[in-house]
């Protein structure tokens, strides 16, 4: 199973749109001054978007209906416009696949988020 790498970068406009679409008014995602007051360099990417990046990389390689579980962990905040690359590795596991995923900042290779998915050979909707 080959997991192609995907690259992402989220602008402040992207983050604002995501906040609006999900009803998330948390100011660290759209208010730069507030984000700085909380010790962040700028507005930050939503935790769910980290999950989305890992998930998109995973499902570029496997049918999403075959994914049994998916877990992710955010390691450090990612600010707007900072580009990342997500890479995955798959190994055989109990008749299916275990896919480990890692999201790194492109500028200094910092590990931003990581994840793991268990994938079956059969889709859950049959």
């Amino acid at each position: 199973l080959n997991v192609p790498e995907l690259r992402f970068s989220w602008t402040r406009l992207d983050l604002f749109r995501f906040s609006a679409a999900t009803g998330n008014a948390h100011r660290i995602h759209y208010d730069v001054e507030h984000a700085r007051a909380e010790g962040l360099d700028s507005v930050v990417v939503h935790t769910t978007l980290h999950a989305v990046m890992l998930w998109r990389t995973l499902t570029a390689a496997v049918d999403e209906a075959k994914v049994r579980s998916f877990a992710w962990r955010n390691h450090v905040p990612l600010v707007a416009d900072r580009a990342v690359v997500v890479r995955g590795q798959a190994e055989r596991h109990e008749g299916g696949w275990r896919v480990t995923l890692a999201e790194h900042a492109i500028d200094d290779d910092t590990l931003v988020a990581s994840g793991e998915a268990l994938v079956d050979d059969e889709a859950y909707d049959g």
Partner: protein
Amino acid sequence: MGMNALVAAEKRLHRLLGQVEEWTVPRVRREDLATWGAVTRDDHLVKATSRLGPSRTSPMFLVGQLQPHPWPTLDGLRADGLAFRDSPGAGADDPIAVLHGGGRVEFHGEVHEGSAYHARREIVVVERKGRPENPFLRVTVLTHFTDDHGSLVAVYEEHILLREVQA
């Protein structure tokens, strides 16, 4: 002051353990799926919603759209904009920052256009973590999503982190 706020938050959280919050995710419309595809830059999903026939997607849609309905009114938001119900244990004026540490989703079915979903959320674990000089609270929240027929669609375990705001 911050440490006192964290202790107070921990006490509140222990009182919230086991309390269940339930809500309905309204019937999923095609435009909801298209919006989700647009804001996550999922071109495949956006294109799928323009084709004939009902659309479907993974329960990641439910995880992303977790904000319970109806939306909170303005007095339901903290000064940092976060809804009180998304920052369990943190009071309105507490110097507490709330972050999400990650999560885990178990998948049991797909999300279909035209279907409504039921969500049942519960705080299941409250833990004190970190070094003594820099402690934080890790709150584990479990949400079960079921469909119109009561069938389990997904289980979402999320980890919310509460830490004192540095002066």
